[in-house]
């Protein structure tokens, strides 16, 4: 209890701050990706007031792992065969190509920096950072819809891209986690991916059976999803696999084949943002090695922005107008969400220094995603005339 109580108090404080930021709680938003929680974490953590002991941050790691897997499960639940089929081949390819291009571009840029001797970054760490940078948070387009009242073709494409590019990130996590595991039975990539798919599928079967065929009862839905999520977390960790990838597979299969998929997605929808907020908060509070890591983080975030612009440009070449725009990448700068969760999860596996670099990069990407990405998205949507003229005056 002694470790849980201060965490609860801090979480309550963080929630209160968001509540104040969102001006009375009517809009459902703080900052776009919730990066104010990162700042609160930094302010309370070792880089700020040092109110949060490292023991406490360590003590809540299992809860963090569970939260990360929950986000993976949520991500999987969003996938529907009918929706995917309706997208069209070009958009489906673009959804895969854009994050892959971004990942490779960012990895290349990091390699240049490392070779120039600017930073000490191990190969695996650089891959992890590049993978984390490849994903765009869905909060950005949701924010544009809810607050800017944006509607239109470009926004729809951005929405699809930001939803589906997380799949690339989850696959990357599925490959990188076993690769980084110091021990574990599944270090070979093919074995690891096979084991991840197998475990996810087995748990999805269990979930489907427990959920039954009748109308979904919400209390049973919660038990099943939480149980499957905890099993994913524990078993994947035990086998050296990625919990988020495993949960993503389980969620994806439930989303594709369960008659309750929509109800489950709806049931858990409100949990996503608080889960991310807790991770952002703890991510900020876990930074403790000083400003060198933050400087690297900011550099990585800038490079990620460039890579996103490049990835967005190349990805848009596959699309038809109006989404075929050179500046499409400007709408994809938002970061956080599942990417931050994956960064948190993998950082715990790395050495303290390398883990800190991953976390610092994720923190900087999230902050820049809110500070630069949100105005950039707004600008793009204004140029594409996806925002009605009256709504353009709404401050971002």
């Amino acid at each position: 209890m002694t470790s849980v109580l201060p965490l609860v108090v801090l979480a309550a404080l963080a929630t209160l701050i968001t509540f104040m930021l969102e001006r009375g709680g009517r809009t459902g938003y703080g900052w776009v990706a919730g990066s104010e929680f990162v700042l609160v974490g930094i302010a309370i953590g070792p880089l700020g007031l040092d109110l949060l002991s490292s023991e406490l941050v360590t003590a809540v790691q299992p809860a963090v792992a569970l939260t990360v897997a929950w986000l993976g499960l949520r991500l999987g639940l969003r996938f529907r065969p009918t929706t995917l089929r309706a997208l069209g081949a070009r958009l489906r390819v673009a959804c895969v190509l854009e994050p892959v291009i971004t990942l490779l571009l960012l990895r290349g840029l990091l390699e240049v920096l490392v070779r120039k001797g600017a930073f000490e970054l191990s190969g695996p760490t650089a891959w992890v950072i590049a993978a984390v940078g490849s994903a765009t948070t869905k909060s950005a387009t949701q924010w544009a819809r809810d607050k800017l009242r944006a509607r239109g073709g470009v926004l729809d494409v951005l929405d699809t891209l930001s939803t589906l590019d997380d799949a690339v990130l989850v696959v990357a996590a599925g490959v990188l986690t076993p690769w980084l595991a110091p021990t574990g039975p599944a270090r070979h990539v093919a074995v690891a991916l096979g084991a991840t798919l197998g475990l996810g599928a087995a748990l999805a079967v269990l979930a489907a059976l427990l959920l039954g065929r009748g109308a979904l009862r919400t209390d049973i839905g919660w038990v099943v999803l939480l149980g499957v999520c905890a099993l994913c977390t524990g078993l994947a960790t035990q086998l050296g696999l990625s919990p988020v990838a495993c949960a993503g597979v389980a969620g994806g299969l439930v989303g594709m084949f369960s008659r309750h998929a929509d109800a489950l997605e709806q049931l858990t929808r409100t949990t996503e943002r608080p889960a991310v907020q807790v991770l952002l908060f703890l991510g900020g509070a876990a930074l403790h090695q000083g400003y060198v890591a933050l400087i690297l983080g900011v550099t990585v975030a800038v490079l990620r922005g460039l890579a996103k612009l490049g990835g967005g440009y190349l990805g848009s070449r596959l699309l038809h107008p109006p989404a075929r725009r050179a500046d499409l990448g400007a709408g994809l700068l938002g970061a956080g969400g599942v990417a931050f969760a994956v960064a948190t999860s993998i950082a715990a596996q790395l050495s303290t220094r390398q883990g800190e670099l991953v976390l610092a990069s994720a923190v900087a990407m999230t902050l820049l995603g809110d500070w630069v990405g949100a105005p950039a998205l707004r600008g793009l949507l204004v140029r594409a005339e996806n925002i009605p003229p009256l709504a353009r005056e709404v401050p971002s």
Partner: protein
Amino acid sequence: MKSDTPGALRQAASLGLLLALVLGGRHVGIALPPAMGAVLGLGLMLVAGDLAADLVERVGLPHLTGYLLSGLVVGPHVLALVDEPAVHALAPVNTLALALIALSAGAELTWSLLSEGARSLLCSVGAQLLLVLPGSILALLAMRPLVPFLAALPLAGAVGVTLIWGVVAVSRSPSATLGVLAQLKPDGPLTRYTLGVVIAFDLVVLFLFAIAKNVAAILTDPGASFSFAVLHDLGVGLLGSVACGTTLGLLVALYLRVVGRELLLFLLIVSYGATGLADYFHFESLLLFIVAGFVVANISRQGERLLEAVAAGGRFIYVVFFALAGAHLDLPVLAKLWPVALGLVLVRAGLTVGSAKLGSRWANDTPLIRKYGWMPLISQAGVTIGMAVSIGQEFPSFGDALAAMVIAVVGLNEAVGPVLFKWALDKTGETGKAARTHGGLTAPAAPAPAQPG
């Protein structure tokens, strides 16, 4: 009772698949640290508990029996898939469950329920105290030669120990009661009688237990002397719990009225926050939450909203709570103490039957209550286990042995009690008669919209 064999086979196969997955992971994978083992254990208990609940329902047993069985099987004393450190690491989850159960129990106690059944409630509690308390004390004293740790004590010390046992024997289980009610959605005289009596017992027992421990300390330690300071501390603790619970209840009601969203997150914060405060000030957290729930239900108009919010997590709470209770059951101890434990269980049951019938006669209850009113009073669970833990901590000389015996008795009562209660509700025809479609832990949350395809 369900009867489709393919469905049962499918569930049994799923349970097998689950156990095989976890056993395989244990065999092939790395050893997990206790905290991560607790996460795996939580998942295992949730899924196995839910599957086992459906399986036992097919033979007419309540879900709680399935939860208990699953916890027992995967727990440290059978398959050891969830080991002792992991069970310990899950204590915060249990804290949350207990807090929400108590909050819900308090919110179920409305003025109308209390005033309608006041006579019944008073007579029942009075009769139980008059028969079960002294009867249990005398029974254990009579069994003294069979109980090694009791035989080793002088008569005064033995009386002290049996006094504690007497209070433990009087304790009932609000969690088991609410758990059965949540599954069966009953309504009627027996349901209302049970709710009032069981929760009232909880409050009486908290007070008696504190006094019994103090008297036992004097009787078992010749150097100790009775001090009124203990009563003062007890009074401060109880009054503090009531005051703190009232404040918490008002805060909860205010939050529900003014903010009214993110209720599960809010209840999570409230549960841990208030439990931490209660620990710090040595208040009774159970009493605190019951009072808070009572205040929300009776002083504000937010009782139904609170019950709805708690109901969303109802099944989760019961699976975790009872699966952990099952995991806590010490089978080796039960194997060693079963003759004494069985004797005590039978005596307690006999005294409970007699006192319930006597109380019903005094209160002039309906024939149904007279006939079946004792059945909900057999269960023992979380509160009694908490008492056993407290005994083990506070009496180094005999505490562990007495605690082991109490846990053995709880194990048997836990297995039989919910089954009897369910049987009574079925017999009285109250099962499934709840008018509410939602509310608290005593009724499941409304189903989410069904989706085609």
